């Protein structure tokens, strides 16, 4: 890698290249790149931005090749290497964070160049003989996907070119007075809790005797007149079927004695209980 470094100072990195005014097919972001730093003397900040537009060494190389309208299969290795090294040098001088890949590529280029300068033994004639072959393959391969990425970007896509059409689904309309809480509804709630109680039945912690009265006191203690309490929370499934029945009877009794009031918003909605003030 040290081979080339002395040779290419930034100022002369791309000297005297015949550059087209615009660079066909080369884009920086969305905009076609209009002009290049011919002598690489551009403000460091701008250069940084310029270099950041490259997606790595292959991209930079492709750029160097394309901007001279060269065939990718016919890279003038010496010239390209010199230019490439120029950019790498600049990046190093600016202490840009230089990805290791750039240095690896520099080494690869230097090696190809040196091999091409060496006299070739005449007997080596197979297709691997051109030391550029692997580089060309990688460049082509990369270019295919670079173009594919552009194609992908130009496909119509959701959120940019297309928008999914969405309509709101309204809730089922609801207005009108609440029905009285019927015994049926109460039974349904009971059934709900009983069903859950079944799941606990195998625990059977203790079959303590629960009197309805005791349970009424307990229930009253759970309630106050300011807040509603979920009916189902007064029935404790873990006590099993029997405990739930006792709890239910306690509530019925409290209602009968006008100590509780029940509220249910609509059929099958949860029932709430509150102590009468």
């Amino acid at each position, binding site marked *: 890698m040290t081979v080339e470094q002395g040779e290419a100072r930034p100022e002369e990195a791309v000297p005297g290249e015949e550059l087209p005014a615009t660079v066909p097919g080369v884009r920086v972001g969305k905009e076609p790149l209009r002009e290049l730093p011919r002598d690489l003397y551009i403000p460091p900040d701008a250069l940084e931005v310029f270099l950041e537009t490259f997606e790595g060494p292959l991209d930079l190389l492709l750029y160097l090749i394309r901007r001279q309208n060269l065939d990718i299969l016919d890279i003038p290795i010496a010239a390209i290497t010199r230019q490439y090294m120029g950019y790498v040098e600049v990046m190093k001088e600016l202490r840009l964070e230089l990805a290791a890949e750039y240095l690896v590529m520099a080494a690869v280029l230097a090696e190809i160049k040196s091999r091409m300068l060496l006299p070739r033994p005449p007997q080596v004639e197979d297709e691997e003989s051109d030391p550029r072959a692997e580089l060309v393959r990688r460049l082509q391969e990369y270019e295919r996907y670079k173009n594919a990425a552009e194609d992908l970007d130009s496909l119509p896509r959701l959120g940019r070119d297309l*928008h*999914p*059409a*969405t*309509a*709101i*689904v*309204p*809730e*089922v*309309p*609801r*207005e*009108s*007075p*609440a*029905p009285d809480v019927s015994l*049926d509804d109460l*039974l*349904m709630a009971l*059934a*709900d809790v*009983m*069903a*859950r109680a079944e799941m606990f039945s195998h625990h059977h912690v203790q079959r303590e005797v629960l009197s309805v009265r005791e349970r009424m006191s307990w229930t009253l203690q759970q309630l106050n007149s*300011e*807040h*509603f*309490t979920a009916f189902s*929370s007064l029935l404790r499934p873990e006590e099993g079927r029997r405990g739930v029945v006792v709890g239910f009877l306690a509530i019925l009794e409290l209602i009968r004695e006008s100590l509780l009031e029940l*509220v*249910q*918003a*609509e*059929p*099958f*909605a*949860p029932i*709430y209980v509150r102590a009468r003030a």
Partner: protein
Amino acid sequence: MTMPPLKHILEAALLAAGDALSLEHMQSLFPDTDRPDKPRLRAALLELQQDYLDRGLDVVEVASGWRIQVASGMVPWLSRLWEEKPVRYSRALLETLAVIAYRQPVTRGEIEEVRGVSISTTIMRTLQDRGWVRVIGHRDVPGRPAMFGTTRAFLDHFNLKSLDQLPSLGELRDLNELHPELDLGFPDTADAAGPDSPARESTDG
């Protein structure tokens, strides 16, 4: 660029937004030189409404503007649409939301007091992320707890123009959350109760 009929632009905008748009917002879609005034917008929206009459769609005005929604007659056909991936809020979340809706402004401590259980941070975050609930101030007591209230998005979701259209607490609950697999021999009364069965009760003190 020739301009498509106004009603088609509005239709596309409302469907793309997937939400209500105010008349002002609709106006802002147009260049200054070609900005329809509100009566024209209204007229176009009403035209759209007409077009939708025999279809499953509706154009309605809600608190934050106009929106396109599926006509209520169509809703029963969609009941199975989300069966595969139910995004259903937990009971705890719905209860919390209800308390906030009815008692706003309300602090977290007050919600917890009403519900009798502590409220997970996740629930409060979900409600705020959803845009239904936001902090609307701080109670002037030690610790200055945040007070929560509901948002326009909340009203829109429930198809309400204002808070006083809110039904009773109990109604906010989903009927389906009642365990449907009750098999304790009770007669199935589900058919007896229509979804529109009346329910308006102020459970709030």
